[in-house]
């Protein structure tokens, strides 16, 4: 290249301080003689025996080449030094040779013998560099020598030489493409190489020479997948892009089932809102049509590729990350593509040129898969230091993701005007693409019209104009608004646009249009030319539609225009007049004037410039330029039928194993991707549990979804979705199973951890097929599934407790045998009768009252005194807010117990106790009952108190089940519904449950509910609905319980209560009681 003279002088001065006699300025050579002399110097230097002089000369020659000077006449002198011992001289001679050999072919042949000798050198470095230079010399005569050298090097001991051989292949191919067949043989041989060093280079050669020979890859596919992580970064990029193409030809589309949906989604995106709604409908239809298709099973090799490339998303190299991203985008099932978003967003923090490329790709991706980048919205915020290109791309990405609904004022005020314009246009696109934000966008744009910046106003008017053109029916208001703005807006372009709009849609604003014309006529002479033209236009259109009002105005405007300074305007005026005003000669034309002026104009299409890019492979140069670059290969479409997968089976499956053992021996320590590098059986054993557990968790989630959907019919919308997902997970389940049987991996982890799987998603996410949304769902289901086991485990201890009441301390509420209830409740009834109360009436309605006896003090701990308690469910005589508790004392010791009473109690705030009268003496073997009242203050906190005898004090506590904190209320169905209506929203708790066969009958359901909670049944019209009502004792807030049972056993439990804690606990208890 041309060097600045100043520099070359500089260089000349510093070039040869050691050899002042040769220190001529090489570039001052305007004079031929000095030029000639200089080359003489160099020749002399090259001919000496001193290495240092030779080196100096070579350095200067290379510097000459670098500056674009012709040094070809030195060729004979230089080529002699090719056998020089000094390695630096040698290398520089190589540089020279590679540059000039093509020009001086005959002389270049002199050096060939040296290289041929070099190819036999014991030092692998020399062998490699000899091959490198030999193959770089573009002399057609030596093609056979090169071919031979490459073939030999391809079976060299040293992998480094083999790598060089791989590099030499494309060089020879570009020199002589007739050698292709022989080269392919070499490539085939090198593809079988097992070292990571060679893999990248040979795939590069493959891509250059014979990308169409996909059959060469079959046998090496699995090996390449497994080696991938250890290949150097550049090789990774090449291999990944090759494998992307390979996978596209060999595997079935994982999205074939979703492709229908995708189409719909896309339509909905680009269509209007109504279409969106329709799209949802047809999605359902498509989903319904799906089961008819053959279920898709992902090829295990396909899965292998996806799994082995995923860790590379963590690579430091942007190129590798991008390569993996495009691989996932083109190959992975839709649900898995999400994982690349994070890595791509990371690249956005890199250098601006990387940002530029990545943003282009992100823009395309987000058009095809909207929502992928939604969690990373903040990374698309714009900084004032971003280059304009990056800013525009960021806005584009945000628009396609649908983020940019309101107009960020900061962006509009930015000093970067290109960016401002792009932002406004982007808002326009946003409005066209997403129906629901159209109004917001329009409003925002209208507000922008009052901006002081000419550019902003003009740009907004233009965008508004385009938007309005698309929806001519609904925008009368905005046109009116725009018409009002004509008084204020001074920007000619904007005024012109407004006038055009009014003219075009004058039928929608029949009153305002003539008025605007009147105003414009008044100020006609002072307007800019562009505005004047539009005034004429408006006048003409109005004349045609509303000639009565505007005839005179139009004529006035036309005569004004007739004498305008600008001939363009005069012409237009004349032309318009001839057209619209009927005259004798021009009658034929004026008849069609209306058609001419008011023809419907097609709405402009506002589309992102990234829309048409998606047919290029992502991450490619062609995609970046949006034009086909030379050598671009189309990404093939998925095949309809999968080609035979057995071609990838390697005949001798042992080789991988052996080779890896060898490799391991070579390695001093277990290393990086050891397990990854081990292909074949070891590898799969290593990674399979992961995928297995994944498929297991999926199958469980699927069965969970099945359950819930059969339980409730009002889940219709979800159901279809689930069907799709269900079929999907079925496939992968099968897939997983297939692998399981194939590879005989010990099972176990999957089932056990299936419920943990969701929560531990960070570790399993590598394989998780779910999007975050569905993961949540999965979590939900997992927690759902957790409940039945706990309720299942509960009955066991209870059964025991029934058998052995005395020794076992039951942890929870349990029914007691009928006789006990009768006796105690009878006593309580009698007591209660003395104080007849209105609340007693509903209490009679509750069929069963009281819960089983609970132990307060065990006889061993109480030294012979055993104390039980029951909740009698009778109103407590002294205080209606108190829960009455019956305490049963029995003396099993052989001495009488005296002076039983309550001691001081430490109670939580709000809880109070009404003591029972002291029992003076309890003879051995006798028992007594006392009634005490406890105000639990509507909480399930335990009341702790002391139970004292004359000699001892016992600390005891009573914790009420939540069902005992309320009293039944009697109300009619209508009242119930009315009250329920008041307690919606947060106060409503709904759960779904499955009624076991044993409690499907009315009687049992009612009994179970009323046993659990002290509620009164509300009469109900329908047979499978049960309603119960009650009030909490302390605060008197209503508790309404509805059980909606369906014939199949599915049921829905709803509790409405102001006290949300009570409501939640009640739901839990009732469900437990019902599902036992």
């Amino acid at each position, binding site marked *: 290249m041309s060097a600045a003279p100043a520099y070359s002088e500089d260089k000349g001065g510093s070039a040869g301080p050691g050899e002042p006699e040769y220190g001529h300025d090489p570039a001052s050579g305007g004079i031929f003689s000095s030029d000639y002399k200089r080359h003489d110097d160099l020749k002399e230097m090259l001919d000496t025996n001193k290495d240092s002089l030779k080196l100096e000369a070579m350095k200067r020659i290379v510097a000459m080449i670098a500056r674009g000077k012709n040094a070809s006449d030195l060729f004979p002198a230089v080529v002699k030094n090719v056998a020089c011992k000094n390695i*630096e001289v040698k290398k520089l001679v190589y540089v020279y040779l590679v540059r000039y050999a093509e020009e001086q072919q005959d002389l270049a042949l002199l050096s060939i013998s040296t290289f041929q000798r070099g190819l036999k050198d014991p030092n692998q470095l020399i062998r490699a560099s000899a091959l490198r230079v030999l193959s770089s010399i573009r002399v057609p005569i030596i093609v056979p020598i090169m071919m031979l050298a490459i073939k030999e090097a391809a079976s060299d001991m040293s992998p480094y030489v083999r790598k060089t051989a791989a590099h030499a292949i494309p060089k020879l191919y570009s020199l002589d493409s007739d050698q292709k067949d022989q080269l392919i043989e070499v490539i085939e041989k090198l593809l079988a190489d097992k070292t990571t060093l060679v893999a990248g280079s040979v795939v590069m050669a493959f891509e250059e020479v014979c990308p169409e020979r996909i059959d060469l890859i079959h046998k090496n596919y699995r090996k390449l997948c497994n080696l991938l992580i250890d290949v150097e970064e550049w090789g990774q990029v090449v291999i990944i892009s090759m494998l992307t193409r390979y996978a596209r030809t060999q595997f079935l589309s994982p999205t074939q089932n979703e492709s229908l949906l995708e189409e719909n989604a896309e339509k909905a995106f680009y269509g209007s809102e109504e279409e969106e709604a329709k799209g949802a409908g047809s999605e359902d239809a498509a989903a319904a049509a799906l089961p008819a298709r053959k279920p898709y099973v992902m090829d295990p090799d396909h899965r292998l590729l996806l799994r082995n490339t995923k860790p590379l998303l963590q690579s430091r190299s942007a190129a590798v990350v991008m390569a993996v991203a495009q691989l996932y985008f083109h190959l992975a099932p839709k649900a898995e593509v999400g994982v690349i978003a994070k890595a791509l967003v990371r690249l956005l923090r890199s250098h601006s040129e990387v940002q530029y490329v990545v943003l282009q790709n992100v823009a395309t991706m987000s058009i095809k898969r909207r929502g992928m980048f939604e969690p990373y919205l903040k990374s698309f915020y714009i900084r004032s230091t971003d280059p304009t290109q990056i800013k525009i791309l960021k806005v584009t990405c945000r628009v396609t993701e649908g983020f940019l609904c309101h107009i960020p004022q900061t962006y509009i005020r930015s000093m970067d005007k290109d960016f401002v314009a792009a932002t406004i246009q982007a808002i326009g696109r946003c409005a066209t693409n997403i129906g629901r934000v159209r109004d917001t966008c329009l409003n925002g744009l209208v507000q922008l019209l009052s901006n*002081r910046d000419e550019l902003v106003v003009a740009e907004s008017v233009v965008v508004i104009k385009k938007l309005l053109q698309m929806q001519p029916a609904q925008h009368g208001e905005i046109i009116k608004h725009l018409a009002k703005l004509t008084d204020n807006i001074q920007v000619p372009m904007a005024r012109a646009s407004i006038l055009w709009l009014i003219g075009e849609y004058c039928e929608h604003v029949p009153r305002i249009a003539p008025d605007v014309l009147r105003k414009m006529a008044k100020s006609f002479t002072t307007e800019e030319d562009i505005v004047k033209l539009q005034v004429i236009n408006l006048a003409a259109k109005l004349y045609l539609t509303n000639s009565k009002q505007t005839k005179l105005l139009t004529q006035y405007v036309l005569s004004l225009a007739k004498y305008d300074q600008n001939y363009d305007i005069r012409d237009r005026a004349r032309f318009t007049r001839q057209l619209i005003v009927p005259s004798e000669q021009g009658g034929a034309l004026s008849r069609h004037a209306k058609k001419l002026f008011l023809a419907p104009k097609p709405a402009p299409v506002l589309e992102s410039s990234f829309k048409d890019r998606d047919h290029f492979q992502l991450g490619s140069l062609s995609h970046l330029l949006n034009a086909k670059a030379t050598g671009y290969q189309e990404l093939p479409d998925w095949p309809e039928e999968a080609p035979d997968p057995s071609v990838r089976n390697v005949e001798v499956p042992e080789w991988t194993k052996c080779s890896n053992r060898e490799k391991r021996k070579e390695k001093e320590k277990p290393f990086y991707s050891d397990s990854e590098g081990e292909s074949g059986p070891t590898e799969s054993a290593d990674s399979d549990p992961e995928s297995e557990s994944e498929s297991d968790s999926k199958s469980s989630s699927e069965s969970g979804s099945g359950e819930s959907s059969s339980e409730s019919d009002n889940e219709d919308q979800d159901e279809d979705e689930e069907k799709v997902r269900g079929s999907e997970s079925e496939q992968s389940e099968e897939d997983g199973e297939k692998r399981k049987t194939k590879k005989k991996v010990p099972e176990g982890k999957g089932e056990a951890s299936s419920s943990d799987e969701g929560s531990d998603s960070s570790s399993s996410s590598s394989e998780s097929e779910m999007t975050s949304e569905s993961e949540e769902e999965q979590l939900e289901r997992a927690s759902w599934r957790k409940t039945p086991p706990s309720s299942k485990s509960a009955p066991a201890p209870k059964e025991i407790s029934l058998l052995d009441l005395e020794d076992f301390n039951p942890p929870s509420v349990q029914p007691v045998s009928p006789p006990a209830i009768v006796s105690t409740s009878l006593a309580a009834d009698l007591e209660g009768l003395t104080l007849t109360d209105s609340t007693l009436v509903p209490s009679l309605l509750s069929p069963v009252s009281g819960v089983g006896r609970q132990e307060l003090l065990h006889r061993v701990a109480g030294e012979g005194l055993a104390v039980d308690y029951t909740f009698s469910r009778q109103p407590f005589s002294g205080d209606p807010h108190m829960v009455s508790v019956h305490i049963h004392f029995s003396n099993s010791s052989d001495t009488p117990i005296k002076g039983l009473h309550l001691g001081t109690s430490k109670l939580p705030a709000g809880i109070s106790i009404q003591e029972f009268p002291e029992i003076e003496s309890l003879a051995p073997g006798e028992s007594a009952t006392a009634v005490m009242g406890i105000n639990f203050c509507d909480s399930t906190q335990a009341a702790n108190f002391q139970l004292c005898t004359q000699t001892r004090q016992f600390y005891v506590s009573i914790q009420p089940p939540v069902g005992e904190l309320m009293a039944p209320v009697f109300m009619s169905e209508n009242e119930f519904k009315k009250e329920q209506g008041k307690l919606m929203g947060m106060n409503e708790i709904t759960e779904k449950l499955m009624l076991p066969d044993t409690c499907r009958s009315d009687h049992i359901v009612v009994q179970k509910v009323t046993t659990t909670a002290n509620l009164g049944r509300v009469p109900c019209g329908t047979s499978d609905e049960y309603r119960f009502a009650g009030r909490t004792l302390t605060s008197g807030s209503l508790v309404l319980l509805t059980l909606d049972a369906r014939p199949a056993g599915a049921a829905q439990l709803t509790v409405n209560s102001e006290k949300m804690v009570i409501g939640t606990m009640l739901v839990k208890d009732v469900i437990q009681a019902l599902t036992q």
Partner: protein
Amino acid sequence: MIHRQKIGLQLSYPSPLSLKCYHEGPPLFVIEFLHRVWTHFRFDYFGVCSEPVIKDNVVVVYEVLEEMLDNGFPLATESNILKELIKPPTILRTVVNTITGSTNVGDQLPTGQLSVVPWRRTGVKYTNNEAYFDVIEEIDAIIDKSGSTITAEIQGVIDACVKLTGMPDLTLSFMNPRLLDDVSFHPCVRFKRWESERILSFIPPDGNFRLLSYHVSAQNLVAIPVYVKHNISFRDSSSLGRFEITVGPKQTMGKTIEGVTVTSQMPKGVLNMSLTPSQGTHTFDPVTKMLSWDVGKINPQKLPSLKGTMSLQAGASKPDENPTINLQFKIQQLAISGLKVNRLDMYGEKYKPFKGIKYMTKAGKFQVRT
């Protein structure tokens, strides 16, 4: 100019490195390669990567590129290997070379090229065995007019300088690895280990390298260590505008904020500014309209401020947008995300290395909208 079939690399004006690409290929591949070249020139060979330097060292550039590229395909790009192939020019070596006649070019194939750890050269020997790790975090933030944070995130890197004899195998563990939201590794880090145990296990390259870069997500609350109080106003009628900014510390965990620099791109209408800083120095370039104020250390007792007036172009309407303030600062001994290295262990070698960890927080793209 070096011309290759696939990647044409041009060393000329206007930027030191520019490139022509003639053939289909991943653009990021090329960009990434250029960045590597730049890094090697900048850090391993010349200290700076500028046009004059490349012109002065054109031979070394040729030699290096010759090793890095073969027929347009990258060959040796690991700095350890390259340095073995082509020794970086130092004054001492130049002197020695002219006396002994030896060269900068190594004559043995770097063993790393062939080994399973291609990034590490073999036969490393040091008398002092040391491993230093710098945890450097950068805060990228956009603060709006009222001082509330629009977006803030932390980018962190762990740069290492490892000078250890032999083939050490290191593990580095964190107190709180869950903080790291998104990570990318040097190829030496064993990915599986990180996935399963959240431990960095690696055989380090020799010398300086970037072990890890990470990101702490915007979801975690990012402590913003400084605040900027600003009062910048233009008036429509007058040709003078007011300008006043004060910088103060906020949530610094008791550390001092150093190296504070404030830069701001003024609107075109600003002709000149007459400002007085309470500390530090400031400059205003009337051509580029760039104001920069080198504040230095922030003393919490006496907050640095910059006050004065702007003279505006007469007759021009007031600028639409107030200038955005860009902030640079440094806080030593603090990783703002709270990331802490738990321990560093070495296996595979007998000696006891000296270990050191340094934390630092810097401003990345830290902008305050006014």
